[in-house]
């Protein structure tokens, strides 16, 4: 027994020495392979590459490169621009006719030859992306009974969409028509300013019917995956990485150029593990761990690589307006006005976030900018906050000690906890109130805040699906779809509904913005049913040899990136 242990240890020691000597050198040659650490796909496996089922940013990041939509969002201006198609809209705003770029082939990565190949049909002809492929994708998302979330979103905007989604009408009745090989017509159920964006989202991407029929639930694994965009799927090691490879058959367009990169390897990594790779030179781009921001900013090399840009989410505190003392707008306003947002950002969140007084992010189409509507901004003023609270107490004839206690709830997370503690302290110092902090596990928390019995104050965040103010103000707070337990049901809430519903169909951009500004006024100022806190930023690190664009909405367009191989060590 003892001798065997010794032999083992000698063997292991040899093995260790050998491995240490070998070290690690990754030779890329002169191919441009970009390694992204945790920035593109985050810290857990990409859930799916089925355009009908994708709901999360990492799935969409891959799909946006492999299967571009009819339209797509410019990553810098956030405007909707032609992608696989150009389009015209009928005068009544209902009929969208898309002219699809001809002769873009379906492609597939062949692992044996290590090359991307064109897909051939049963007669040996090249398969081109057609209007039929887009129609198939849309019909599958809406009528496939797959439980497609975004299929459900789109269903509301297409003629007969809701009935087809529910299985009450056959999928042929859907307002999607193939006029010829490269022309697709979608008939909307109601006009809206942002329909060209919705029809360009992933649930409406072209899908390969012949692959899906053969491979079923597993069709988008690398063995069978087919795409047509600037990149296609090369490798997917579940939970470790996903790699896309340049599609040499992509013709290149003004908006979607032929990629300069040969491959993009997106590594699934937790933030501090990603940073370690970046610092070791093993990654070209990395996500930023919040705990390291101070060090990165102080470091001469890392601070050069550090980038802070607009994110895609807003951080707010929702208020249950049915629970005293928050059933009075003055108390809610007092809470909102006594948060020092800039101090919170400088000392707690540290990611260069922007103080928020409106809910809809300013980068969204039709979103009002808070500096353009100062009369609608509640602002910060501790003196006024104290007066508001005092007038409330006087009216009830009670003292501060007799006021009901306030509970502030957030889901378990170190970041949310620190923010809550800072705000708790600000409220205590400014108003003298005591606030109890409550935490819950994520899934439990979601049920809590979506019930009418939600805590008095609760943390919430919302990220864009498509860059229009509608996606924030209507999709979260219109009473038809509202889930948050803010119990906001007074006359102002009814007026808010009518404003955002009017803005939905209003064609003129400035008028829409004005309508949304009035809606923000009711939600965040007059009634203060929510307390906007900050607009998220997106943080990343990029090595100096990478030329890139910085996306403002959560996904990157790698076909616009390049690597200077001569500058890479």
């Amino acid at each position, binding site marked *: *027994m*003892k001798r065997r*242990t010794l032999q*083992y*240890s000698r063997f292991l020691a040899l*093995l*260790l020495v050998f*491995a*240490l000597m*070998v*070290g*690690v050198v990754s030779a890329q040659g002169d191919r441009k392979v970009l390694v992204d650490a945790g920035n593109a796909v985050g*810290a*857990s*496996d990409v*859930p*799916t590459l*089925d355009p009908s*089922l994708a*709901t999360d940013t990492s799935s969409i990041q891959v799909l946006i490169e492999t299967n571009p939509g009819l339209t797509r969002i410019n990553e810098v201006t956030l405007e909707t621009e032609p992608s696989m198609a150009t389009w015209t809209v009928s005068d009544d705003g209902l009929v969208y006719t898309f002219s699809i770029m001809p002769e873009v082939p379906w492609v597939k990565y062949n692992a044996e030859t290590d090359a991307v190949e064109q897909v051939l049909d049963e007669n040996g002809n090249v398969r081109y992306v057609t209007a039929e492929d887009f129609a198939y994708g849309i019909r599958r998302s809406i009528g496939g009974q*797959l*439980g*497609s*979330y975004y*299929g*459900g979103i789109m269903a509301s905007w297409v003629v007969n969409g809701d009935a087809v*989604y*529910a299985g009450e009408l056959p999928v042929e009745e859907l307002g999607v028509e193939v006029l010829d090989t490269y022309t697709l017509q979608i008939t909307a159920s109601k006009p809206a300013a942002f329909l060209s964006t919705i029809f360009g989202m992933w649930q409406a991407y072209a899908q390969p019917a012949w692959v899906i029929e*053969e*491979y*079923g*639930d*597993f*069709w988008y694994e690398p063995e069978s995956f087919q795409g047509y965009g600037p990149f296609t799927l090369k490798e997917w*090691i*579940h*939970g*470790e990485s996903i790699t896309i490879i340049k599609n040499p058959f992509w013709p290149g367009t003004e908006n979607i150029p032929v990629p300069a990169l040969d491959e993009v390897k997106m*590594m*699934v*990594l*937790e933030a*501090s*593990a990603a940073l*370690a*790779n970046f*610092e*070791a*030179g*093993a990654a070209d781009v990395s996500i930023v761990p919040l705990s390291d921001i101070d060090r990165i900013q102080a470091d001469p090399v890392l601070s050069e690589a550090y980038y802070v840009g607009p994110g895609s989410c807003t951080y707010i505190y929702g208020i249950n307006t049915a629970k005293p003392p928050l059933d009075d707008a003055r108390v809610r306003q007092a809470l909102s006005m006594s948060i020092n947002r800039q101090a919170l950002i400088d000392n707690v969140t540290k990611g260069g976030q922007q103080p928020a007084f409106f809910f809809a992010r300013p980068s969204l189409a039709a979103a009002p900018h808070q500096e353009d509507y100062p009369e609608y901004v509640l602002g910060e003023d501790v003196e006024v906050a104290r007066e508001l609270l005092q007038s409330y107490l006087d009216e009830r004839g009670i003292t501060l000690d007799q006021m009901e206690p306030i509970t502030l709830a957030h889901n378990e997370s170190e970041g949310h906890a620190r923010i809550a503690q800072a705000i708790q302290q600000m409220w205590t110092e400014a108003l003298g109130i005591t606030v109890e902090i409550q935490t819950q*596990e*994520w*899934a*439990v928390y*979601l*049920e809590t805040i*979506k019930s009418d019995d939600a805590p008095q104050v609760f943390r919430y*965040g*919302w990220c864009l*699906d498509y860059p229009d103010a509608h996606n924030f103000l209507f999709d979260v707070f219109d009473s038809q779809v509202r889930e948050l337990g803010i119990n906001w049901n007074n006359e102002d809430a009814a007026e808010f509904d009518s404003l955002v519903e009017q803005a939905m169909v209003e064609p003129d951009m400035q008028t829409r913005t004005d309508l949304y500004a009035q809606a923000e006024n009711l939600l965040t100022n007059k009634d203060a049913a929510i307390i906007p806190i900050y607009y998220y930023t997106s943080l990343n690190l990029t090595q100096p040899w990478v030329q890139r664009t910085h996306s403002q909405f959560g996904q990157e367009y790698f076909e616009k990136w390049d690597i200077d191989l001569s500058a890479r060590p």
Partner: protein
Amino acid sequence: MGAFIVRRMLQMLLVLFVISLFTFVVMRAVPGGPFSSEKSLPPRTLAQLEAKYNLDEPLVMQYIHYIGDIAIPHITENRLENSVLNDYLINIYIPVVDRTFRWMNFGPSYKSVSQTVNSIIKDTLPVSATLGIGALLVALVIGVPAGIIAALNRNSRWDYIAMGVSIVGVSIPVIVLGPVLRYVFGVQLKWLPPTGWGGIEHIIMPAFALGFAESARLARLTRASLLQVLNEDYIRTARAKGLAERVVVGLHALKNAMLPVVTTIGPLFAFLITGSFVAELVFGIPGLGKFFVTSITNRDYPVIMGTTLLLGFLVIVANLIVDVVYVWLDPRIKYD
């Protein structure tokens, strides 16, 4: 002995059944569901998903279906529809009837939509097992000799050094040791890749991070156990009959002193090969460990059940092996 093993295997089935029932009840009693998110699914979308995964049935039926899919063998067509709902662990072609015998379908993952519990475990268990065996080797190679040296040189400088180091080892969790190793050897010295999986160079740091704390525990256990054995009468007898100290310690004392160590190694082995959440996050390893945690936060019911049953199975088997090893270590132990 054979009868003993058979009896224990039957007991194992019963234990696994109880584990499955208990886990099922507890996980379904917790609020929240697999499709909860900031953006709630509209009721019509939720209904489609619940129908797809049979979540619209009464709970009792869901449990019966779940156990049925695992326990009851099916004879089916040779080619099944490519669906995450019918991925069986065991598929045996029966030529006589030209059909396929299929057994043990642990269900789909609700979160990774193209994955099943079987495919997740097939992908990740080999990774975690490789790392776990590496960590166990580190633990044994450092821990047992350190314990022996400490015991034989009791209250000497060597004893203090070995036990001092082991106190440090027990006190430093993987979440601290891992990033330190990664920073020193991966970022600063660049001797090893900071994260990743694939080659022997990827195993060294995580295996050491995981194994070091265990080695410290084993060292303390080995020391204590060996010291106790060295005071036994039969050791005095062995010495009295003039055996060399090497034989006394190596043959008589050590073998008996290993009993408690082996007892610990059994379950330790089961836990190590099923992966470590922290080590996998720190070193970017696509292992099974993170599924034990993420499946719960995601309410990914089949993955929760699958990982729990797998761990239960491995702990029971490891304990069974330990019991068998006892017989070899200590001839006084007999199973009838």
